[in-house]
């Protein structure tokens, strides 16, 4: 996955030329795809036009400020947390050499395999007052409640830490790629002027990698704001818990979707503001990349580097995985049966379907954005990827309402004109379930494909066109092979995300369609953590494999990218 460098413009040409007629077919297709994918988000946003109920007055006077504040604190906290971990580890792994660097460079990705709510359950099981850690402390020192201070894991700080631990790989991954595309001569130049390592990082390297950092943090923020499992379990009232409370508790679905719209508009505003602030600066990497030079660390500095890199891996993967493993060993004989095979098959099946659709749609949209020059196209495309910031249950409503309407309208028309009933064609099928997941995770696929397309200079398109290739042929013969790496990255990330999705969208599923995430969540929310561990561990196991492939592909594509410039 690369940086989202829209700023990478061809060297010689004036930036914008008018729309070519030959691209209109593709553009039409792209805009249709974008609109189709925007349906759920638009349905959610449409709620803004509905009359508000007096619940709003109640929310404003009581909890709305809390929701907003906690969401803000959480989002900022997670941004800081993931930046801190992501930047340090990515910088250490790309600029220095120390024992174990190669090992860390891929193990640092592993926490991505953990759904945030599972790591939250796991750590709570270990660290809360009644958990083994505090209990042993009390036994050893003969303490009572109130005799000692222990950090409260179920707090907003705890939630920030948990979410940061599993989301930092996005920042790490994007920055590592960006750093590797930067010429090491930049670092050398900076060192020659006598600027220290940290200063180099913050004055030269990071500002240059800003698009990558921002792309990573955008994903992180959207995922954080949509997180329900962790904050709900930790009792932190955020926008997301507020949305569901308004719906389930106050019984006002419309007000709940209006809250979700408010959240969406905030996210949209932040993204636009960031884009605007970035407009003036161009992030063009030098044409020829000097590579390979890493500053060797030894002694105490090497040990420090090892400690810094191993902490996130230990805390974000090894410790919770061991805890899950321990629980699984205890409960597996009772819990694991043949139904697990179905769960695994369903999980993988859903993930594969969703991944394929997202890849195809991302390619259509990203390339549409490339060939389309009308200013509205990027906005339309971005709208279709906003689902990532919406809690799954709300997405489910956004899918359910229009699909059910469509089904019923079609049925009514057929009955009236042909006298036959089509019943529900979309609702309650794998189609609507897959569609909801596609909408939810479109951002990941689109970001990645878009970023790798942006790295291709536009003169390549022009050359192919002058050599007689039409829009579609250009895409298949030139762009598709060139962005294979980006597509693979997108596919693997989406696969991992779908596998570990909190099963909120699963209210759309067909009868008796269960996945590992459903099983895990049902047991975990029934407070049977140990029993949930088998399926949770399977989710992690299924996600680890793509992550490993992902790491390999990035190392390889790094070589290819270095060569092509």
């Amino acid at each position, binding site marked *: 996955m690369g940086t989202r460098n829209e700023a990478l413009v*061809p*060297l*010689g*040409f*004036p930036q*914008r*030329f*008018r729309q*070519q*007629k*030959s691209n209109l077919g593709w553009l039409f297709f792209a805009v249709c795809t974008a609109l189709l994918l925007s349906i759920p988000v638009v349905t959610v946003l449409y709620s803004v036009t509905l009359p508000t109920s007096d619940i709003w007055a109640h929310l404003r006077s009581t909890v709305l400020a809390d929701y907003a504040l906690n969401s803000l604190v959480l989002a900022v906290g997670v941004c800081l947390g993931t930046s801190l971990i992501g930047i340090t580890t990515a910088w250490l792994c790309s600029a220095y050499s120390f024992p174990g660097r190669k090992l860390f460079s891929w193990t640092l990705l592993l926490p991505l395999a953990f759904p945030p709510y599972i790591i939250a359950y796991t750590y709570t099981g270990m660290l809360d007052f009644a958990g083994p850690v505090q209990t042993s402390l009390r036994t050893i020192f003969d303490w009572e409640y109130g005799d000692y201070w222990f950090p409260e894991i179920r707090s907003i700080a705890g939630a920030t830490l948990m979410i940061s631990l599993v989301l930092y790989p996005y920042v790490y991954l994007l920055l590592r790629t960006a750093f590797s595309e930067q010429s090491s001569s930049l670092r050398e130049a900076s060192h020659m002027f006598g600027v220290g390592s940290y200063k180099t990082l913050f004055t030269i390297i990071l500002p240059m990698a800003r698009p990558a950092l921002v792309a990573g943090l955008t994903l992180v923020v959207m995922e954080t704001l949509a997180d329900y499992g962790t904050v709900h379990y930790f009792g932190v009232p955020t926008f997301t818990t507020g949305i569901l409370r308004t719906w389930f508790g106050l019984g006002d679905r419309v007000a709940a979707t209006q809250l979700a719209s408010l959240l969406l508009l905030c996210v949209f505003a932040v993204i636009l503001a960031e884009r605007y602030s970035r407009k003036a600066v161009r992030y063009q990497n030098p*044409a020829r990349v000097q590579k390979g030079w890493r500053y060797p660390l030894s002694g105490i500095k090497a040990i420090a580097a090892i400690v810094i890199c191993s902490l996130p891996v230990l805390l974000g993967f090894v410790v919770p995985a061991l805890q899950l493993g321990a629980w699984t060993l205890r409960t597996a004989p009772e819990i694991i049966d043949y139904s697990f095979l179905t769960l695994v098959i369903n999980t993988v099946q859903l993930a594969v379907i969703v991944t394929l659709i997202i890849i195809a749609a991302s390619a259509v949209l990203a390339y549409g954005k490339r060939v389309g020059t009308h200013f509205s196209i990027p906005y339309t495309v971005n709208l279709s990827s906003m689902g990532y910031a919406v809690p799954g249950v709300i997405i489910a409503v956004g899918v359910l309402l229009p699909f059910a309407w469509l089904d019923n309208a079609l049925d009514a028309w057929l009955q009236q004109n042909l006298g036959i009933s089509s019943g529900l064609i979309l609702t309650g099928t794998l189609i609507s379930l897959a569609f909801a997941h596609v909408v939810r995770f479109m951002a990941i696929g689109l970001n990645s494909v878009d970023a790798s397309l942006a790295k291709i*200079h536009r*003169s*390549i398109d*022009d*050359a*192919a*066109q*002058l*050599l*007689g*290739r*039409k829009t579609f042929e250009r895409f298949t*013969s*030139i762009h598709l*092979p*060139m962005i294979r790496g980006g597509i693979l990255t997108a596919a693997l990330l989406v696969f991992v995300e779908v596998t570990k999705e909190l099963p909120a969208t699963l209210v759309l599923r067909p009868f008796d369609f269960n996945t590992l995430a459903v099983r895990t969540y049902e047991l975990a929310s029934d407070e049977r953590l140990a029993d949930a561990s088998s399926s949770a561990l399977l989710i992690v196991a299924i996600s680890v494999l793509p992550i490993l492939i992902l790491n390999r592909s990035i190392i390889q594509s790094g070589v*290819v990218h270095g*060569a*092509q410039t």
Partner: protein
Amino acid sequence: MAPRLEVRNVSLKLHNKNTLQNVSLQLEPGCIASILGPSGCGKTTLLRALAGFQPVASGEIYVHERLFSKAQFTLAPEKRHISMMFQDLALFPHLTVRQNICFGLKSLSESDQRARAKAVLELIELEHKGEKYPHQLSTGQQQRVALARALAPQPEILLLDEPFSNLDPDLREQVATGVRKILKHENVTAILVTHDQNEAFAMADEIGVMAGGRIEQWDSAYNIYHRPKSRFVADFIGLGSMLPATVLDAHTLDTEFGRLQGHLDPSFACGEEVDLLVRPDDLPHDDSSLITALVEEKRFRGAEFLYKLRLQSGNSVLCYASSHHDHQIGEPIGIKLDIEHLVIFTRQSPLPLGDSP
């Protein structure tokens, strides 16, 4: 014989600016032209309009008398049979050299493709590199591959967009001459866009100097240099300085070097105060000359020195002297005026030193 390319009064706007204004030009088959101008003069836009990437607002573009562009009509680039060599070469990194070359040959049978690729590879003397990937070649080799790819489909017109700007300056002329040879061998009609006049001189049969979206002068290299039609062209091409002069009659000019005889632009009236273009090669160094000037600056150029001299009148001029005439700054040296073409412009002060980029 009909012209290969004809551009009639083409205008277009970009970002609400007149990027091209009434541009007209004609190109005979096999002719290599160069569009020369500073950055932002519209030369790349003109190229893109020819390629079909940029629709025109008014005027027409014909190739072989077939209409390619007019207002509200732009023949798609892929249907124009025009090739282009790009500044960044735009080689497809995932294809081998041979695949790159065959990319534009999909209408041919496979055996024809092979034959054509072989022929072009021989032309650029890279017969043995066909299976290499672009990144495995040197910059110069990549340059030739880009040329070969553009030539392979035997285009009506070849467009070259500053293709040598990545090369070292001393290599550029050499490569440009090599490319010219290949183009002439293939009898290709080509347009080169550049801001480097040496590149243009080395490549082109005809040169168009562009400024502010207009073609200032379309002429041979010799005429562009020695008979510039505007002060801008005189300024932009080559080195030189302006010397105040007075028109005495249709053939005589009065300067501080004395009276000069020659053909003068008849639009100037007798007694009019004008500026005379003096190229450094019009002012040979002559130790025996009675006219002396003080050395203000000097630049060593290997075979010769370029001196900037201050005349007694206070005007500055440029002068070449062979490099064994090494004079110190402040030293007076003798010069004489040996000028063949009297190029004069309406007086404009103060006079900028025409130092081209």
